[in-house]
């Protein structure tokens, strides 16, 4: 019995693996051949954004912590790579914008970014350390629910203000343009570099998926769900949720950092706009549309919403905000489990589960009084 189940699980995992490889191969080799360069670039960006939504799904869909501040980590990763690109200069020269503000010495924190390995480390580590610190300070005091969401939003605003106001350090509002800079001797805006970024994005997406898949299966994944369901109960079972939450938030931040770096080089510029409040909440809607608590949903949702956005803003720019607002309302009220959840329910609906009391009856709500405040 036990072995049978195990065998079944292995078979499922194998099918999943084959499906991933197949999709990856199609994305990597078939799509570039059929799509025009402009559309391909768009797809590459969206796949980059899909990486962030994996991170958001991890922290919101599984662990139940709604972060409205993932733009911080996304932009930190983006700035990291953009700084590296800006520093591809003959020695002794400074990036152009510095001279505009009369800065004649490279700020100390720019210096290590001339090294590529350091930059890669920084793209992953800096966002995750920021997330871990913020998470530790918040979670250790058992701040949760909407309080956590509000604090992440405030943190986002703070980072936005900081990056926006510091012309002399990181070119303030104007941001850092990467499309005209060089990486490994190739111009980042050129078609060959863009194609490389596209392929790297696919690899990173798959790696992020595997990481999230590993984290959300097994005991650790169940623990995340338990944190979402009843955190206080978990303490009485002897677990300290703080460490788990900090770790998940940090991982989620690191994933967002990688995504930000990939998105930046494919867009060609990073500005503090990446840390706008609206953008970070939009990330949440990608996950919600696809279906939270399902990793595939996060990816599908991102692609769908972003394509809808592109089409709508090309045709009727005013309608996009109405549409997005409507999407928020719709997903929350009618489709709480998103598209993937809806499809899954349809399929499983046929196989009725017999329980007492019946599923149609109200299951007694198990609500924490503190959520009501």
């Amino acid at each position, binding site marked *: 019995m036990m072995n049978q189940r195990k065998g079944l699980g292995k078979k499922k995992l194998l099918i999943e693996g084959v499906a991933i490889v197949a999709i990856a191969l199609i994305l990597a080799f078939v799509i570039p051949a059929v799509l025009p360069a402009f559309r391909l670039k768009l797809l590459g960006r969206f796949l980059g954004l899909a990486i962030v939504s994996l991170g958001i799904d991890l922290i919101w869909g599984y662990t139940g912590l709604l972060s409205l501040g993932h733009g911080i980590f996304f932009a930190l990763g983006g700035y990291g790579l953009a700084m590296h690109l800006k520093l591809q200069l003959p020695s002794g020269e400074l990036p152009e914008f510095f001279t505009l503000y009369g800065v004649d010495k490279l700020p100390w924190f720019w210096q290590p970014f001339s090294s590529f390995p350091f930059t890669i480390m920084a793209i992953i580590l800096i966002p995750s350390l920021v997330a871990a610190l913020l998470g530790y300070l918040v979670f250790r005091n058992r701040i949760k629910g909407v309080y956590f969401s509000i604090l992440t939003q405030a943190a986002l605003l703070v980072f936005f203000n900081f990056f926006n106001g510091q012309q002399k350090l990181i070119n303030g509002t104007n941001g850092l343009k990467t499309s005209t800079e060089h990486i490994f001797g190739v111009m980042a805006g050129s078609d060959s570099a863009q194609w490389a970024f596209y392929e790297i994005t696919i690899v990173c997406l798959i790696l992020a998926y595997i990481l999230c898949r590993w*984290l959300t299966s*097994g*005991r*650790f994944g*169940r*623990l995340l*769900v*338990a944190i*979402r*369901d*009843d955190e*206080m*109960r*978990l*303490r*009485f*079972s*002897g*677990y*300290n949720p703080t*460490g*788990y939450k900090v*770790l998940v938030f940090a991982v989620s931040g690191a994933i967002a950092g990688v995504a930000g770096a990939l998105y930046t080089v494919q867009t060609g510029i990073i500005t503090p706009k990446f840390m706008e409040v609206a953008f970070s909440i939009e990330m949440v809607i990608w996950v919600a549309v696809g279906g939270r608590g399902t990793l595939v949903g996060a990816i599908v949702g991102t692609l769908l919403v972003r394509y809808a956005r592109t089409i709508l803003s090309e045709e009727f720019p005013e309608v996009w905000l109405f549409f997005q607002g409507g999407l928020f309302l719709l997903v929350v009220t009618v489709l709480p489990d998103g598209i993937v959840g809806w499809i899954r329910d349809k399929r499983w609906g046929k196989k009725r*589960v017999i*329980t*007492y*009391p019946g*599923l149609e009856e109200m*299951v*007694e709500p*198990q609500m924490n009084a503190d959520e009501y405040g």
Partner: protein
Amino acid sequence: MDKILITDNLTVSFDGFRALNQLNFTMNTGELRVVIGPNGAGKTTFLDVITGKVQPTTGKVLFQGRNLRGIPEQEIARLGIGRKFQTPRVYLGLTVRENLDLVCNRFKNVFSTLFRTPSFTDRRMVMGLLETVGLGGKRDLKAALLSHGEKQRLEIGMLVAQSPDLLLVDEPVAGLTDEETENVGALLLALAESHSILVIEHDMEFVRQIARQVTVLHQGTVLCEGTMDEIQGDRRVIEVYLGESEATLATGNNQS
């Protein structure tokens, strides 16, 4: 070292209101103790203090001789105190088996949860517990789909999976049918063979089924202690349960 739990002049006050007032309570290792008391007697607060959810204002709680002040909930749980809540609290998004497995895990820090796979003994324990609480057939069902009574049993199962030395059980039969009540009672008696158990209960029928030693709480202090028969004969207990005048009436009738 045969006292598992001692409270010494324990007082808990919320903004001046004393939920527990100079409470002195002792319990032997291996004992099954039932605590009863009218509403607002401080029963749930008593459990809150033991499990670390509420800190004592003055006085102390000693578990196996160790002062519990300032120790966070999860550490207290790891020391060997398990708690079952009044309304069943299980992880609704997990299946019955996963619920048990999570609690059964011996290594509760972040990295061992991430890297260790469930051991053979863990899995066997979960299987055994599924049988004990009678949920073997529903082991792969989400806990959200269980009935109230099934959730109660699952939570007791989770309590045992934690293998604590002291089980704190808060109103295990509230809202159960007679048959389910009897099952839970039998389960608790079986558990009492190998654990120390403190049960808080309202249902007198049930108390009579399981109780050996009963403590009556009233206004945050111990009113009296004794066997079920002694308690039922005690004038003060009748007074707090029935009110002053009726109590005199009742005892008057007894005498005549």
